[in-house]
């Protein structure tokens, strides 16, 4: 599928014209330029309380053109696949360098060989007739209603995307990649004695409909229903500093916020991150080894190659508590005089790339999850999350818990109301006192926002214990 002519055949532009546009980005002295081509097709089905209410499809294609001079970049895009239009945008961005001689470009003759084992469902079901997928939604709807008579409403959706992307740079890189993405969502509302509660579950990844061979629509519907029904009886969570035990899997959102963003190299090259200048220094407890890795087959956060042509890798960010590496794109790598780590990602052709996470996770420890909980006299156990946010400079981060339980004398007891947990990056990770042996990676669902760009990511973690962190409950 990745033959040398695909860039040309898929996007209908002659290689010569693409090369000309890349060269034009350097006409005024910029030291790097690239062309990013994209053609994305999306289909979604929405079931609203048992009825297939809507089918949507969309196509979005364009070419983003960039010129870089030092740490400064100019970016423009067009949705017209015409040689003259490419040259117009290339000329516009070339102005990032205002004086200077034209630099010469090295245009790759052949595309890079990319690994092909990370995505499944390349001839994705996105093009399949919608009728073939309706039963998946119906099965989820039925399973949610069968779970409990308390389930009052069910919303199910299936969204699939296939994104063909191509890159041609002024520095000898060229690739075409075809990235699939599937996402299945179930939202339910349960009601008891006039009290309502919502439950949500989601799954998917870079995979086609074979996703459901591993996890059924019924399983997702039951998970959403279980949360809604259990949380109907939630009582106020405690306020103030508490011992917090995190369940394996989606709790990795803690890492994403507490250290992930702060280790994106753009914030560090600019000195605005709390972690700036801390390479080689302790930033977490010795139990914490944190890795960003784009290489898990089918994972939502995985990529064969980043959007600048650097193959995704496995990058250890924190090794036994010591900060060892930031996540780089091309600009920050050049700034630090090292190679990019393959984290230069963008939402679409409408945006320039910047350092972004892929799948960010903590290596497992040795404790059994049962021991972690049993060792906790009083605390809260957090299981499901709706997201988080971080202030890069002061290091404060939050993660939003939608399913949690009180821990009393080493046992999970009452379900607790929605609560936000707030901490400070190095301080919170410094208080990690136990790490379980039960590492789980997230299943689909997570999208990371930075600036105005959204990219799909994954998180992973084992059961861990944080000795003190502020819980935004209402019970004193």
């Amino acid at each position, binding site marked *: 599928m990745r033959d040398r002519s695909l860039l040309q055949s898929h996007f209908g532009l002659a290689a010569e014209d693409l090369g000309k546009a890349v060269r034009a980005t350097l006409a005024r002295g910029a030291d790097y330029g690239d062309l990013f081509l994209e053609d994305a097709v999306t289909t979604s089905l929405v079931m609203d309380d048992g009825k*297939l209410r809507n089918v949507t499809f969309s*196509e979005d294609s364009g070419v983003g053109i960039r010129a870089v001079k030092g740490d400064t970049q100019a970016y423009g895009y067009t949705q017209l696949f015409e040689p003259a239009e490419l040259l117009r945008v290339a000329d516009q961005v070339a102005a990032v360098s205002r004086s200077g001689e034209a630099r010469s470009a090295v245009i790759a003759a052949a595309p890079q060989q990319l690994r092909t084992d990370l995505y499944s469902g390349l001839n994705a079901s996105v093009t399949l007739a919608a009728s073939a997928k309706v039963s998946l939604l119906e099965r989820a709807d039925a399973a949610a209603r069968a779970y409990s008579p308390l389930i009052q409403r069910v919303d199910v959706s299936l969204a699939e995307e296939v994104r063909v992307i191509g890159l041609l740079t002024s520095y000898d890189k060229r690739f075409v990649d075809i990235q699939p993405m599937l996402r299945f969502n179930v939202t339910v509302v349960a009601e008891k004695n006039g009290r309502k509660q919502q439950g949500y579950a989601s799954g998917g990844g870079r995979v086609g409909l074979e996703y459901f061979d591993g996890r059924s629509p019924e399983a997702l519907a039951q998970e959403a229903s279980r949360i809604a029904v259990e949380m109907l009886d939630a009582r106020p969570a405690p306020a103030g500093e508490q011992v917090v035990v995190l369940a394996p899997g989606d709790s990795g959102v803690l890492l994403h916020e507490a250290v992930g963003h702060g280790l994106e190299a753009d914030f560090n090259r600019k000195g605005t991150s709390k972690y700036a200048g801390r390479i080689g220094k302790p930033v977490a407890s010795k139990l914490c080894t944190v890795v960003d890795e784009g290489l898990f087959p089918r994972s939502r956060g995985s990529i064969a190659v980043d959007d600048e042509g650097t193959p995704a890798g496995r990058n250890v960010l924190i090794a036994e508590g010591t900060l060892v590496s930031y996540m780089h794109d091309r600009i920050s790598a050049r700034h630090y005089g090292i190679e990019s780590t393959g984290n230069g990602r963008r939402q679409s052709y409408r945006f320039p790339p910047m350092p972004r996470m892929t799948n960010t996770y903590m290596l497992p420890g040795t404790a059994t999850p049962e021991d972690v909980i049993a060792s906790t006299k009083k605390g809260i156990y957090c299981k499901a999350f709706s997201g988080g946010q971080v202030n890069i400079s002061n290091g404060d981060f939050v993660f939003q818990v939608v399913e949690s339980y009180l821990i009393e004398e080493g046992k999970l007891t009452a379900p607790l109301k929605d609560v936000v947990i707030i901490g400070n990056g190095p301080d919170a990770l410094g208080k990690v006192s136990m790490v379980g042996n039960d590492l789980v990676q997230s299943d689909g669902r997570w999208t990371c926002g930075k600036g105005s760009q959204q990219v799909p990511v994954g998180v992973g973690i084992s059961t861990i214990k944080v000795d003190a962190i502020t819980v935004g409950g209402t019970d004193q």
Partner: protein
Amino acid sequence: MRVNYDSLNEEWRILAEAVLARAKELGVELELKFGAGDTLSVKVRKGELDELRQSAPFGVSLRVFKGQRSVSASSSHVDERSVLELLARAADNVTLVDEDAANGLPDSDLFFSGTASLEVFDPDVAAVTVDKAIAMATAAEKAAFAVDPRITNSSGASVGVNTGATAIYNSLGLAAFQTRSSVSLSVSPVAEESDGEKYSDGWWHSARFAADLATPAEVGRIAGERCVALIGAEKVKTGKFPVVFAPETAKDLVSLLFSCVSGTAIYKKSTFLTDSEGKAVASDLVTIVDDPLRRRGLGTDPFDAEGVATSRQVLVDKGTLKFYPCGTFSARRLGRKSTGHSGGGNSVTSHNLYLEAGTTPPEEMLAGVQEGLFVTAFIGFSFNQATGDFSRGVRGFWVKDGKLGLPVQETTVSGNLGQMFKDVVAVGNDLAFRFGTDSPTVMIKEMMVSGA
């Protein structure tokens, strides 16, 4: 590139005629929307250009209805052949979906007609050059650095310059066209203490008209002052205290209340405020208005995303909820008519939503607080619409004996949105139309503050 919106209007009208005619041949009803824009953004950091972005995007979206069935589609290909293909594909798929009596084009008696002169397009915005934008950003960042020597770094100052046009046509004769402009300025300085701790905050402003934009000097100064004021921030003690929300945070509470009474949340029964129409949802100090027709407003819209004419409406009158804001789909699900709040598809959106000014000067409000929290920024977005449970990270200041004291961070405020609105004990006289959804300073009797 300068987009000529007059000729675009004419191009779209001709294209719409062809596509609507084809829809008729296919036996379907059609809603057809076009959008185009011209955008420039610059970011300056430490006095140097960091990033320059320019583009002129366009797109088309459509909804096809056959009886009570509906399918939607969108594309970045806006030539006639592509749009006709998109229509054909949507029409092919429409038999797949289930019938829903709520589906269909809006009632034609609600359509916007004529022209509105609401001053949402300023030709001077289109005339802002790259050099001018860079100069504005540079001046704003400089003003932030000038506030205090402890401001040692910056995430940058950005200027955004946008013009755009949208048009909506449908099979029942709707034809509506609107151009818009906006210009924005934001500054994000970083203060550093001698111990190396960093503090960041920022300030921003945007306006439809270039002349209405706050000066770079003002935006930069406020950003710098906010940033320096945070130096030394710490978590506070846990307990129940009065909480005063500054306008830039109080507006988010107003948005949350809107989402809880939106027609979509009501018909989905996913809100704690079902059956709240005509009932008290807030203290009688609270009056909330949506005014889509305010001249030069950031959310000004003579028609909503379905082409339904909008009007000024009081949503909450002295604490009583007057109606559920709806688009066509949610309205029909609830057996009523659209209120002009469609955000496209079945979504519901506000326009220029605001909490009306009260009578209390904010200084007086704070002076009445023996011990409590003044909130100037949220971190995170958590809110449970089904239960109303609210719990968020905050930054701000501890209030002691009526005076602003130590800066606060790594702290949360929690409560229930329904109770919070009922516990509003003072509304400031400091309403300014700044963000699109706006509020004066608001004081809530008591919330749980969680820190150390």
